[in-house]
């Protein structure tokens, strides 16, 4: 018997970290304090005691980012075909099916059109609960279409990333989604339209190394882990502990890879201001 137990439903073991639990009273994983769900929601899913951001899904994020009732979802039922017939300790096909049942999502990104203070935006947000928010063919295709919708509607694009990276179970197909999404972003760029990349905790691997780092505005939430290689791999490579705050949003801002760190409660206001200024 191994001294550790693998989590069999997700590629990263910490998927449940700070997730909003059922019931009306919730406990903050950071400070341990309790609060009512309504208080949490009113604070954009941040702790009313210590400001820690809860790890939330796309529906919850859109609830405070977009104008009430403005979101219309596209390509909701697009799903993976398991192109490699991949099997590790269990079949990828079974893993997808189980995750669809659990999350009521068909893959790791929700895309569509919405409004921010009346301004139209094409928006995409990854869901970490779906196989670690990993990018396979579906994520790549849905994000590409979200880019196309921004071009077609001559509006801004917002992609909210939260992902462990490219999805191993689709092999080279997953890798190519990095090239595909980046190529499509080059078309958005040529069309002169704004792209806001918002990075949440965590954003790593092939997602960071493609669309997440390519924003006209690279924005992150405080303390979000953002990087190419995961901290465990880097630690193994260099054979020593990593410095405090390494790969956190504040570190990336200091190194020149982010424009802004914005607390979740001010996200709607900040993005709205950017969009307004570009319009005026």
């Amino acid at each position, binding site marked *: 018997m191994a001294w550790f137990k693998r989590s069999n439903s997700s590629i990263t073991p910490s998927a449940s970290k700070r997730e909003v639990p059922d019931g009306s009273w919730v406990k903050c994983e950071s400070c341990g304090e309790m609060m009512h769900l309504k208080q949490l929601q009113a604070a954009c899913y941040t702790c009313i005691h210590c400001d820690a951001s809860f790890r939330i899904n796309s529906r919850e994020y859109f609830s405070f980012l977009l104008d009430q009732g403005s979101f219309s979802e596209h390509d909701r039922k697009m799903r993976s075909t398991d192109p490699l017939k991949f099997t590790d300790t269990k079949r990828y096909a079974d893993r997808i099916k189980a995750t669809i049942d659990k999350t009521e999502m068909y893959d790791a990104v929700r895309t569509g059109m919405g409004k921010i203070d009346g301004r139209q935006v094409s928006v995409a947000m990854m869901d970490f609960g779906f196989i670690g928010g990993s990018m396979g063919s579906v994520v790549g295709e849905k994000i590409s279409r979200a880019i196309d919708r921004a071009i077609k509607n001559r509006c801004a694009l917002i992609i909210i990333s939260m992902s462990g990276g490219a999805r191993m179970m689709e092999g080279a197909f997953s890798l190519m989604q990095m090239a595909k999404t980046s*190529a499509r972003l080059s078309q958005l760029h040529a069309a002169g339209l704004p792209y806001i990349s918002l990075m949440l905790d965590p954003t790593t691997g092939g997602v960071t*190394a493609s669309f997440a780092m390519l924003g006209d505005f690279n924005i992150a939430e405080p303390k979000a882990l953002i990087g190419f290689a995961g901290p465990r791999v880097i630690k193994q490579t260099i054979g020593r502990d990593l410095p405090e705050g390494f790969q956190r949003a504040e570190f990336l801002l200091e190194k020149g890879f982010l424009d802004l760190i914005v607390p979740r409660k001010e996200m709607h206001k900040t993005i709205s201001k950017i969009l307004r200024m570009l319009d005026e």
Partner: protein
Amino acid sequence: MAKTVLDFERPIVELEKKIDEMKTVMQDLEISDEIDALEAKIEELRRSVYSNLTRWQKVQLARHPDRPYTLDYLGKVFTDFTELHGDRHFGDDKAIVGGFAQLEGRTVMVIGHQKGRDTKSNLYRNFGMANPEGYRKALRMMKLAAKFGKPVITLIDTPGAYPGLEAEERGQAEAIARNLFEMAQLPVPIVVVIIGEGASGGALGIGVGDRILMLENTWYSVIAPESCSSILWRSWEFKEQAAEALRLTAPDLLEQGIIDRIVPEPMGGAHRNPSEAAMLLKTVLVEEITQLSKMKPEPLVKQRIRKFSAMGKVSE
């Protein structure tokens, strides 16, 4: 010279040694029939071994320490190679080499990962694992090629982008992402060839092009089989299964529609006859560059983006 022999190569190499001994030691004796028979046997053995390689064995061939690397091809396929250095911001990454060279009288920009042959040169080349400045140097050279209207050829051979502390500080992810974005719009032809290992973002960082080719015994995927094994199986022991599951060989990627063409290697792999491997690659490169050079920049870029847009399989 000490050559590395992989397990599955051993019976063949031993038979070859035997023939060589017979040829030199028994020159005067009437044994040519015997030698002929032995050579026929080797040929048969080669065919059966190399046509039945598992995916993991192909990964091993792709990593063979005697395999030709970018600078070897630069010496054999091209002439007048003029190496250019540095990203103009931070430094000169030795894990990526590049510069202008001539391909049958046509000036091209060649950029590739470079591995070392021994401990010393491997440390110098960082085992072919580039830092951000490597990708930025590659991009600088591609833009130089675009300025002068010269086609770009990239040769991929990397175990991955370097996962180090300084690499993160200098923006490994941004450097790779930028290359994907810029390569999509580069207004000159780009031919990409996997000549050894094509590991993940570190490979793709110089891997966006109009034609994607793989040498016969190479691999290209989202992750190396060992790392895949360690994450999904929670153990390094399942690399063979991971290699099978990832479907990462040249025929696999051709079937997946991700690459356009497989470049044949000499029997037994490029390391068995580097000169022949170079000639086989040269023939293909000349063909591809000649074809692509007929296209105007605008339709070329449009076609390139369409090509990558078509990659992936979904159901709706």
